[in-house]
């Protein structure tokens, strides 16, 4: 299968340039994982204002009913446009767009082709992912990319920790066998 994705070095360099633009013209750093908790905080502020006012984490992002902070803000708009951006890349800039993926190959090899099993795994994985991201104060975007490029010690500790835990977990879950989709050709 022909390699149609762009070079990871080109993509990385362009993500660096995108950060120049957001830092200098928008005074913002790329980030994603605050948005889910900001939405949850906004909903809690609306449906249970007293409980929300007593939770410092909720008021940090949503404010209070009397002094609210906007929920639909810069990062929310960024997160909302990630999938459309990827869709443009898949449809118009490469011929690697294939059938919808319901259960990935590597998952099927270990856990079988059942869709409900994979969906349950994705749900549990997503929950663990955001819990860890918020405990750390950021994710791959906010901590690793934005933090890493600012040389923030927190970003580099985060990267070391997520690889230190993610590598053994992935080897345990999916094994160490080589797959038939070598580097670049997916």
């Amino acid at each position: 299968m022909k390699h149609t994705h762009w070079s990871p070095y080109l993509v990385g360099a362009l993500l660096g340039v995108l950060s120049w633009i957001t830092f200098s013209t928008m005074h913002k750093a790329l980030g994603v994982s605050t948005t889910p908790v900001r939405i949850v905080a906004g909903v809690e502020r609306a449906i249970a204002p007293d409980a929300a006012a007593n939770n410092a984490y909720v008021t940090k992002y949503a404010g209070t009913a009397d002094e609210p902070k906007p929920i639909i803000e810069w990062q929310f708009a960024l997160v909302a446009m990630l999938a459309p951006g990827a869709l443009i890349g898949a449809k118009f800039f490469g011929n690697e767009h294939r059938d919808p993926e319901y259960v990935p190959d590597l998952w099927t090899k270990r856990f079988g082709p059942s869709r409900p099993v994979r969906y349950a795994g994705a749900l549990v994985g997503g929950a663990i992912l955001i819990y860890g991201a918020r405990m750390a104060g950021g994710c791959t975007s906010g901590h690793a990319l934005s933090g890493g490029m600012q040389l923030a010690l927190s970003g580099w500790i985060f990267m070391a920790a997520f690889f230190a835990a993610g590598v053994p977990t992935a080897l345990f879950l999916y094994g160490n066998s080589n797959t038939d989709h070598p580097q670049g050709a997916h």
Partner: protein
Amino acid sequence: MNTLTLASAWIDSPSKLILGALTGLVFGFLLQRGSVTRFNTIVDQLRLKDFTVLKVMLTAIVIGGIGIYAMRAMGMDVPLHIKGTKVLGVALGGGIFGVGMAILGYCPGTVIAALGDGSRHAWFGVLGMFVGAIAYTQTYPIIKDPILSKGDLGKITIASELGVTPLLVFVPLTIGAFIFFVILEKRARSSAT
């Protein structure tokens, strides 16, 4: 509460939303072009079989960081956004994040971008992220004192700790990344033949 204040309780200024939306569109596009919207790419990075993720990340860090600190050195108004180093929270949270990333096969940005790249199971990952967000906001008061307030070193950088100008740190960082990339490409070529 009238309509205008109700809207401002939820929605920021249109200019910020437009800039955020444009940023997200380009960000999602680049993630897809780099193939990191694929489960197999992320999991094979964690299995140390395919180093696409690290190539993208390290290149972005080097190029992005040199540009940001160079603009600041030229006197441009480019504020930093350094996150505090709360050692226990960052290390433990990072570890939990790594476990979640191995199970889901995506990180928060790539799982959302993957929705646009044909990944159907990613929808359940996004749903899971909201479950995690609810769990975190509700357990925050419990974990705040025993975990989050431990080992707070403040908003420090590698440069501030070494007492050097940030751009100087990028000299060994860039050379190190370059050597790492050369080794990876050599290894990929020899295993391909």
